[in-house]
């Protein structure tokens, strides 16, 4: 369903993605782990062309893009296949929670206002914000804002939702509510690619985990394998740093 083939991206002389190959099946939950600067955000941003990759192919559903000969129309088509949840929420500040969710439905998907509203209300209820629909982002907590962000993505009914460290900007006590919402959506069979530093969450929720370092996929596998029997030394070192509790069990 999603195929990323030989994806490369450089910023100046800094080659950040060095030929990434990833295949994702419909309904799969993929978590991407990796140290800071390994290119995780850049990879997600290439998937919706917030960054233009230099080389490689991106195929989502029936849209296929070759980085070397891409045109504007293809980019718009590709973007409609995915939706993104940002670390910093990035809600439209001048719109209420409801309007944030309706925006794409009305403007991009050309749904009628009443249809969009009905859909938006349903999704906001799913993320537990039915009593905050008229609040502006500035009136919501970080956790609530991120749940609006998730609702905005989910409402578009994309083929895949991309999460870039959705809980990293949150106060610790608000992380749980957001992870709970993501887990709920995951159970409904939505395809998701999640970049996260929440190791336990990734382990519980994912069908497959991808470990990236230095712009390449170092290792991938089911959570059980990645967390307990890593093949690569780099994966081992990273997980040791990220999950100090493993030390105690030895």
């Amino acid at each position, binding site marked *: 369903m999603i195929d990323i083939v030989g994806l490369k991206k450089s910023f100046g002389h800094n080659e950040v993605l060095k030929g990434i190959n990833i295949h994702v099946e419909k309904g799969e939950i993929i978590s991407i782990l990796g140290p800071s600067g390994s290119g995780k955000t850049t990879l997600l941003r290439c998937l*919706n062309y*917030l960054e233009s990759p230099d080389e490689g192919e991106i195929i989502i559903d029936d849209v296929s893009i070759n980085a070397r000969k891409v045109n504007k129309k293809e980019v*718009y088509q590709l*973007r*409609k296949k*995915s*939706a*993104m949840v*940002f670390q*910093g*929420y*990035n*809600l*439209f*500040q*001048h*719109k209420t929670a409801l309007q944030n969710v309706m*925006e*794409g439905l009305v*403007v*991009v*998907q050309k749904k009628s206002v009443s249809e969009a509203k009905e859909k938006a209300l349903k999704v906001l209820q799913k993320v537990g914000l039915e009593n905050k629909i008229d609040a*502006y*982002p*500035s*009136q919501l907590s970080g956790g609530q804002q991120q749940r609006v962000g998730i609702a*905005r*993505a989910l409402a*578009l009914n994309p083929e895949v939702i991309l999460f870039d460290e959705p809980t990293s900007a949150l106060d610790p006590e608000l992380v749980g509510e957001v992870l709970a919402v993501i887990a709920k959506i995951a159970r409904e069979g939505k395809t998701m690619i999640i970049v996260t530093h929440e190791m336990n969450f990734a382990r519980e929720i994912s069908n497959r985990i991808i470990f990236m370092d230095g712009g390449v996929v170092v290792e991938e596998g089911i959570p059980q394998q990645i967390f307990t029997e890593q093949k690569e030394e780099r994966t081992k070192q990273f997980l040791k740093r990220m999950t100090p509790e493993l030390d105690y069990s030895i």
Partner: protein
Amino acid sequence: MVIDFSFVWIAFKEILKAVPLTLILTFVPIVVGFLIGLAVALIRAHNIKFLSPIANFYVSFFRGTPAIMHIMVIYFGFPILLDYVIKKFNLPFQSNHVPIVVFVITALSLTAGSYLSEIIRSGISSVSKGQIEAAYTIGMNTFQVVKRIILPQALAQSVPNITNLIIGFLHTTSIAFLVSQKEITGAANIVASKNLKFLEAFIAAGIIYWAITLIIETIAYFLEKKAKSYSRSAF
């Protein structure tokens, strides 16, 4: 010397007749200038080829020179240009048929446009990059992003600055009396010269300017509150 208060009142009533022209000289350039400023700000924000350097030059020149100069250059220069065009195309028309007020409005519109483009530009840069990216990821095109996400916030952000500009402009229109426009200052000058009571006439003019300013400020206060109702500071 004592102030002749009864003459202040006489002058007041006389000068009041000049208020409509003053308001026209203030608001027509602001409205036209807003459209110019919007276009210029967008051209610069998107760094559009060929147009961007022209826009930069325009803003730099008009902000770098006083409004009185714009009026004078257009007042004296425009007719020459117009006559040239008329001659070239044999038009049944003469440049001295154009009312002076048109020159003044043209000049002040260009002045306002340069200031408004900077105000709108700073409003645009206040919209976070993240929101713009979010808008693109949900599939919007550039036109939709500008219209639905960037401009509403940029303009809401600009209201206080635009208010200041309008008030500044109200007072700037006084220079139009130099090209014999009978706006408030011009009218004050005429009443004053006729009766040789300058102090009284200008006190009356001052009161009128002040009153109009207060009205603009009051309207702006409510507009500002409404425009920024989405931000926490308004609560």
